[in-house]
């Protein structure tokens, strides 16, 4: 798997933590952004990107290549990552 993985998350969201934990346990590297901890202007930029990708503000958002997964979904992660 060569695609870079990016996660938009909230620092307090238990499902975001589960997604990060799942990937870590599988030894998969990812870049995570806790959107709630960004400055207001950074947050605006990221939210615009999230809304473009998903049409809503729901977390976590996992981006793997062209795939966008909203919410904690281990089955979908396994499928996309070929686990």
């Amino acid at each position: 798997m060569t695609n870079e993985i990016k996660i938009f998350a909230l620092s307090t969201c238990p499902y975001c933590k589960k997604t990060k934990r799942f990937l870590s346990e599988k030894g998969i590297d990812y870049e995570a952004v806790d959107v709630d901890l960004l400055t207001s202007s950074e947050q605006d930029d990221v939210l615009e990107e999230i809304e473009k990708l998903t049409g809503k503000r729901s977390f976590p958002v996992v981006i793997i290549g062209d795939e966008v997964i909203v919410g904690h979904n281990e089955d979908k992660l396994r499928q996309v990552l070929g686990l």
Partner: protein
Amino acid sequence: MTGQDERRVFCPVCSARFAPEGDLTEGDQVRCSICGQMLIVRACDNQWLGERRSMLSDDEIRDRVDGFAMIRGYGFNEMKEEIIDGLIGKRDAFGDFYCPCRLEQTPEYQCPCRPTRGGDVERDGRCHCGLFWKDSRER
């Protein structure tokens, strides 16, 4: 105090007035029938104001979510403790028990959030976070 206001207590969590059972006396402890918060009743400017009991403590939010679930007949699942940890994280980072699964830190998203108080669980079977469930056996 006279008229309708005589029986109603303002809840600072859900910003609404509710009518508890029985007569009210300064210092009484009552549970908000809308959000489940335990309040200490105070007389102020000819109305009853609720003061949050154990304000901002871990016990406050645990008691509130248990109280809300009891009032509505909702259940929890195995995510309860992780979601409560998230609520405590919100308090530590943003000052109050806002929904841990949303970005917004506004009164309408104090847990139980306004959509949940307004019937999301009846409609969807669960609240946005999956803390409150209409049927606790569902997941």
